[in-house]
């Protein structure tokens, strides 16, 4: 099945991004396709390379960058990003900033859009 993923909550503050990450990993392991991952609301904070969690904790942005390195399109909403000071300079490699149109395209081009948020 072809999935797109929408993540709406900030990192560490909320488990939405962690659940999404596990979902993506499990889906890939089962041979499903991830069409794209879209970050909105405080979700845009998930891919800032400025985060520096303690060494015994997961690095959420680095994890997403590794998913992106597999060729999965990871998009941060530009409107939500601008509001929160997330710029192309601060996002991790293998992610990009673009418009909400990308969410529409991901959603209509997938069998399922799965939202992680409150």
């Amino acid at each position, binding site marked *: 099945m072809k999935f797109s993923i*929408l993540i709406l909550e900030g990192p560490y503050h909320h488990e939405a991004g962690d659940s999404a990450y596990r979902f993506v990993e499990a889906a890939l392991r089962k041979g499903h396709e991830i069409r794209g991952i879209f970050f909105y609301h405080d979700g845009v904070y998930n891919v800032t390379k400025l985060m520096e969690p303690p060494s015994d904790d997961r690095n959420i942005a680095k994890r997403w960058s590794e998913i992106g390195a597999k060729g999965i399109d990871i998009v941060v909403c530009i409107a939500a990003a601008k509001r929160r000071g997330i710029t192309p300079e601060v996002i991790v490699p293998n992610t990009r900033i673009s418009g909400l149109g990308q969410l529409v395209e991901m959603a209509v081009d997938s069998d399922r859009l799965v939202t992680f948020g409150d």
Partner: protein
Amino acid sequence: MSDEEKVSKIMFVNRRAPHGSIYAYEGLEVKLIMGAYDQDLSAIFMDDAVLALKKGQDTSELGVKEFSATFRVLEDYGIEKIYVVEESLKERGLGVEDLVIQPEVIPISRVAELMEQQDILLSF
């Protein structure tokens, strides 16, 4: 868009109060953008989200933007089907005459059926 120009049925599910969090406001921004993509769009307002449609809001003392008037243009942006849940209005002492738009009032018992008809649900 993909070559086959598939039209998807997309419903915006609004459940949160207009202020206190940004979900409703950024959810509105999604509606305005998606209107440009020629999909079959609808929106439903239930729970505290019905307050977003209330006439006569004044957020000046909150120091945040008052955006209820923007709901009036949703139809021009291609969101022609707008529903509001009757029970959510009643629980908050509201009637459709208190709202900035005139959506179709439906009982909560119809919501599942409407959602079932959609390809994509976006919840804010």
